[in-house]
């Protein structure tokens, strides 16, 4: 036990057949009180692995390869340690990295088909930069600083930093600059190449592509039931090409009518069920805007459809329609054929606008935020600068909208319909956040993966367009940090309810890092249809495969599995904070903070050791006093492991 998980961890501890090590105790989110019966997924993971010896060896392999993948640098090396299928494309010596924090640093720059690696060669300094090319948003050549012989390149990154390099070019040399090579591999799609995720062939113990299965998720929710049915109408993505194959619709609406409803909703995105309350049967449904247009077109089918959604919930005679947009924007959409539901046409429905701005406003807000946090923070005007970015204000509006939805469903027992214009940006934010408030399942590590798979990926949030994977067109107006905002909102909730989530901050940051990295296939493509067509599950690795192979890293030790706990966060600037651990992490003055968690793990280890000792003594005492008092020696203290 003295090793306490520090050194032996390299050997894949959860799978060893020895006594459970300290770390595995921590990983399974033990708390003194949840040991009784609520064993949830993470534990089954380790017990599965114990079953056969072949599996154990497989695990070991994986373990070591994860290692090479993760810790790609020994400091002494000038070149990165490569991951499977990664190869060096170019190396340039005598490159200067112009660090905004400590000035010019000279070193060697390597570019692979996956990453950029810069290693300082000066003296004995240990400085390295190592980033996946996917995070690069834009590469620009900046005019030579000192005469013609030196060129300088600026890298604008999607993860809140800018990097600047300079290097000498040999006159008359025909050799391409390393930055031209970099350009090609940073934006492979623009150069007719494939994204690296299609080459990376790492094998993980379980496939993350199987994390989410629509049917079993709906089954978990108790669906189908007497009011809701599962339709295969969209099996071949013919009803709506941006929706998933499996949809849940009211029992009373036959498939034929769905088509007519689809004709009235933008991009055919009809209202479908996202979540149903286990007791009240109030539902969260999502869709796109109705095609009302300037003339105020109506659709009997659509009206009947919404009535059916309301009728499916016997508890309430009202239906709330939450339009995520500001009312002005919603009205302006009429010019383009869209619009919103008029309360005349939809009896018993109440329409509420949630005032959340569009993708362009959000993109601009993030741009401003980056200016405020990178590279340096202006000390005297930090808060007002932050306020002027409106970033937290947007976060607040999104959370406030989700809170209103959750409140209507939970406390008002009323069903809600959520939409924005197309129903794949703000709608996804609102439904997923309200589900996170309403359903503790989504607050588990695996539940959260399902939530992302379901509300974001399967319902067609356009990740490819919003992130711009491998595409050099950095000024594309379709790019927007919509998913980042969602993760930020989740982080805000974890701050207010530190023991309500099974995952930790590191988990959220990892998701965001791999949103851009192009290492995994998870966030590639724009819709389920595209992913199926491009065979992403077969040809790429899922982010969840990696995450689920080391869940312990991502587990919040303070998690308490309160099953009926609906979260009502306080959506106020008094509690919202800038996510310093993400946005300010490149600042060397910033120290990552997770001391509570670390300390908790120490305490867990301490408890485990004490328990062992107490049990030992109890056994001793029992042996000494003979069989008569054997029972007294049974472990009466908190059980060692859950």
């Amino acid at each position, binding site marked *: 036990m003295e090793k306490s998980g520090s050194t032996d961890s390299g050997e894949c501890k959860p799978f060893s057949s020895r006594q459970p090590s300290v770390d595995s105790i921590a990983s399974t989110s033990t*708390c003194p009180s949840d040991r009784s019966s609520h064993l949830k997924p993470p534990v089954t993971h380790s017990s599965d692995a114990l079953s056969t010896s072949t599996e154990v060896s497989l695990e070991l392999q994986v373990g070591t390869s994860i290692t090479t993948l993760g810790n790609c640098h020994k400091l002494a090396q000038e070149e990165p340690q490569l991951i499977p299928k990664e190869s060096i494309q170019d190396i340039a010596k005598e490159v200067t990295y112009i660090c905004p924090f400590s000035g010019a640093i000279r070193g060697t720059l390597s570019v692979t088909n996956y990453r950029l690696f810069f290693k300082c060669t000066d003296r004995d300094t*240990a400085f390295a*930069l190592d980033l996946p090319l996917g995070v690069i948003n834009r590469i620009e050549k900046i005019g030579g600083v000192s005469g013609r012989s030196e060129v300088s390149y600026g890298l604008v990154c999607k993860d809140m930093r800018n990097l600047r390099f300079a290097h000498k070019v040999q006159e008359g040399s025909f050799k391409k600059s390393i930055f031209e090579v970099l350009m090609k591999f940073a934006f492979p799609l623009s150069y007719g190449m494939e994204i690296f995720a299609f080459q990376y062939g790492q094998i993980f113990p379980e496939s993350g592509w199987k994390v989410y299965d629509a049917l079993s998720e709906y089954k978990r929710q108790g669906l189908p039931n007497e009011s809701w049915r599962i339709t295969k109408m969209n099996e071949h993505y013919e009803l709506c090409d941006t929706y998933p194959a499996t949809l849940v619709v009211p029992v009373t609406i036959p498939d034929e009518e769905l088509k007519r409803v689809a004709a009235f909703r933008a991009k055919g995105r009809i209202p479908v069920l996202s979540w149903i309350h286990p007791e009240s049967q109030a539902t969260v449904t999502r869709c796109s805007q109705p095609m009302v247009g300037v003339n105020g077109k109506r659709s009997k089918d659509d009206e009947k459809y919404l009535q059916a959604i309301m009728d499916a919930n016997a508890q309430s005679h009202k239906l709330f329609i939450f339009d995520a947009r500001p009312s002005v924007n919603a009205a302006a959409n009429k010019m383009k054929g869209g619009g919103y539901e008029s309360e005349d046409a939809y009896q018993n429905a109440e329409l509420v606008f949630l005032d959340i701005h569009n993708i362009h406003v959000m993109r601009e807000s993030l741009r401003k935020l980056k200016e405020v946090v990178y590279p340096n923070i202006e000390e005297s005007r930090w*808060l007002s600068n932050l306020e002027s970015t409106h970033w937290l204000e947007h976060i*607040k509006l999104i959370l406030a909208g989700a809170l209103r939805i959750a409140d209507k469903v*939970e406390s008002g027992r009323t069903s809600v319909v959520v939409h924005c214009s197309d129903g794949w940006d703000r709608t996804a934010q609102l439904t997923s956040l309200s589900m996170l408030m309403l359903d503790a399942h989504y607050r588990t590590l695996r539940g959260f993966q399902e939530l992302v798979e379901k509300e974001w990926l399967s319902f067609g949030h356009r990740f490819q367009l919003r992130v711009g994977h491998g595409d050099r067109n950095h000024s594309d107006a379709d790019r927007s940090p919509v998913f980042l905002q969602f993760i930020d909102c989740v982080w805000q909730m974890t701050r207010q309810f530190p023991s*309500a989530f099974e995952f930790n901050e590191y988990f959220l*940051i990892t998701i965001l890092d791999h949103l851009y990295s192009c290492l995994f296939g998870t966030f590639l493509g724009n819709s389920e249809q595209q992913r199926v067509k491009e065979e992403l599950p077969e040809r790429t690795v899922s982010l969840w495969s990696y995450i689920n192979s080391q869940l312990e890293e991502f587990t919040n030790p303070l998690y308490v599995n309160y099953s009926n706990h609906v979260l009502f966060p306080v*959506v106020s600037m*008094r509690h919202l904070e800038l996510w310093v651990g993400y946005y300010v992490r490149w600042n060397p003055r910033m120290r990552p903070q997770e001391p509570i968690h670390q300390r908790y793990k120490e305490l867990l280890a301490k408890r485990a050791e004490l328990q062992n000792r107490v049990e030992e003594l109890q056994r001793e005492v029992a042996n000494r006093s003979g069989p008569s008092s054997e029972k007294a020696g049974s472990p009466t203290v908190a059980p060692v492991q859950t």
Partner: protein
Amino acid sequence: MFSVKPLKPTFKSYLPPLQTELTKTPQPTINKLEAKLLPGEIVVNEVNFVRKCIGAESSRDDLWGKLICTNFKISFVTHDALPQQKFQYANRLLGEHDVPLACVEQVVTVNDAKGKQKVLGSNQKLKFNPTELIVYCKDFRIVRFRFDEAGPESAKKVCLAIAHYSQPADLQLLFGFEYVGKRHCAPSGDQVNGADRAGGPQTPLFDRTCDWDREIKRTGASEWRVCSVNEGFSVSPSLPEYFVVPVSLADQDLKQYSGFFTAQRIPLWCWNHHNGSALVRMASIRDPAQQRKLDQRICNAVTRSHPKRGDVLKSDLDKSLPSIQDVQAAFVRLRHICVIEPFEESEEKWLSSMESSRWLEYVRAFLKHSAEVVYMLEGKQASVILQEEEDRDLSCVVSSLVQIMLDPHFRSLQGFQSLVQKEWVMAGHRFLDRCNHLKRNDKEEAPLFLLFLDCVWQLMNQYPAAFEFTETYLTVLSDSMWVPVFSTFLFNCARQHTEHSRDFARSKNIPLGRDKALRFPPVWDWSQQFTLKDQALFNSPLYVGKGGPCVQNGAVKSFKRTKKNYSSTLRGMPSLRNGLLGEHDYFPRRSSLVLRLRPDFSQLREAAESPSERFFGDWLSRPPDLQGLLLPQLLPSHLKLWRLYFLRWVPEAQISRGGPITAFHKLSLLADEIETLQRQLRQYKGGAPPSSAPASAPGTPQPEQRRMYFKADTPRDPPSPPDYLSSSFPFSPVGNLCRRSILGTPLSKFLSGAKIWLSTETLASETL
């Protein structure tokens, strides 16, 4: 009673209380409503059928009862219980609805019908009968009473009495004197006096030479000595009788020098670094002609007391830090935006209002300055002299922060208390004036002690496992400033304490016996205010102490090994799973698997960086040793509003079943389990198996006091977190913040908030 001093004629009119009111009451139950009085406490005036407002919007939850003004507090007694009150943190000296008079900031009377409003001062007249009384408190509460059904005259009298008694004309009219006087006379003795204070480890008060001796020994300050030149306060009126000076300075020198310093304040030793450098505080030198010579002498003496004859650096605090008026102004602005301004309306500009209050900026300035002093002591191994005009305000904050950063002893509960005693109480911080207990001079009022507590909170927020105590402790400590019975916060200096308590005893003919004066209890005697059970809320489950509270009594030997292991794997280290990194790894585990790109700058210091920045940078790049040096992270993005303190009464800001307390709760259960196991082990070691029956193990109450407030007795997770947990815990905003409702909220406001949309069902299930 207050009869010591001749009473001013005006309040004779409403003294004594009108007994006739009581006999007239139709409901007999009301008769039973009596204020709970402390020794020496008397009822001044009271009024029945008063409504205490609970909600701003409706009177649905309002409480009916009797409002009483005593010479100690405003008391509201009622038979009604607060709606959905599931938890109560009780102060033994105060009832649930009581406000000590010393805590009253402003008394406002309102007459709705006439549309009149008046801020009441002492000895003022009130020309209308109030229908409403609003009391603004120094601890940020706002309590509201309605007199719709009460006798108008008696209501008025109570209001006047409150206004009058909350502004005592003389120090000896503060309730503490009556209280301590009565308790001194009481036969039980109640161990207020003398050495027999409550059991358990005691906080040294530094009013005796032995306390200083011990501190010298503890810090290894062998070249420093305790001097008693100020015995009987014969040299300086504001210095303590005993303090510490360089060995090389003789009493004769000190006496000679004293005349040149402001208020004869000779330089005081505060603390010694183990490298030999010392922290010293001193007042300014009045006579410019003497300045250089004296400076030189003092510096020489300090150098001579440094084993390596290290440099002496001087830090002029008046020049580098905000003044006490600045701090007060910031505090007033912050209070305004936190509790006075309507919640929704202030949302939009919250961040910039916070910034323009400048409170956090000042917190940062004090932390930063202290960190620089730390650098001089630790990094440059130089002794530091903190200089301030009077050496009684800014230096208290800086010297104590420096010591907290450098010396883990002061991060333990006892250590922290001794620090406050040493650097604040004994050094002569003018608590009486800064708290403005006598409401005489508003210009002297300044919340420096609160500022200090906020700075400590920032450190605690950044390094929670480094402190033995909790933010609840800091909050309760700050609240205790407004309970005027503790020696800690009542006086400007030790001499004032001694003289006034002697005079009071004399004038009251209280036999003092062997004591020279009445002894006020220090606030550190927490049993006066809280039960042992409630005091457990002061203990942090995370604390990594010297040997740790978890390895108390050294019962678990093998722990030491484990512990070492753990402290070496403290945070900052890479994910263990990925192995390999070993010593080579300098990348914090924060960055994700493939994105380990956070650069390390520790070896890249350019010349542009100042040595102190390099020192901070180096320190920040290493995992902190919680039992060693602790430096604050000073990026403005790292300084936070101390929400528990500033927002605890704001109902709209309360996160129900959430907030940091939910994590604390879970941690406490684990810490308690560990404690239980350790007790069992000790019992085994002691020979006897733990009381034979297995059931006795975790469940049954133990004779020993358990450290944690939340105990691991219930093994199963409840379906939802305990109702009483909220971000305000252990305080409750219910009935404690009653702003007048704002009518006609515009729609835009409606859209930008959140709470107000919550359906009534939700609101009903919350503690509002």
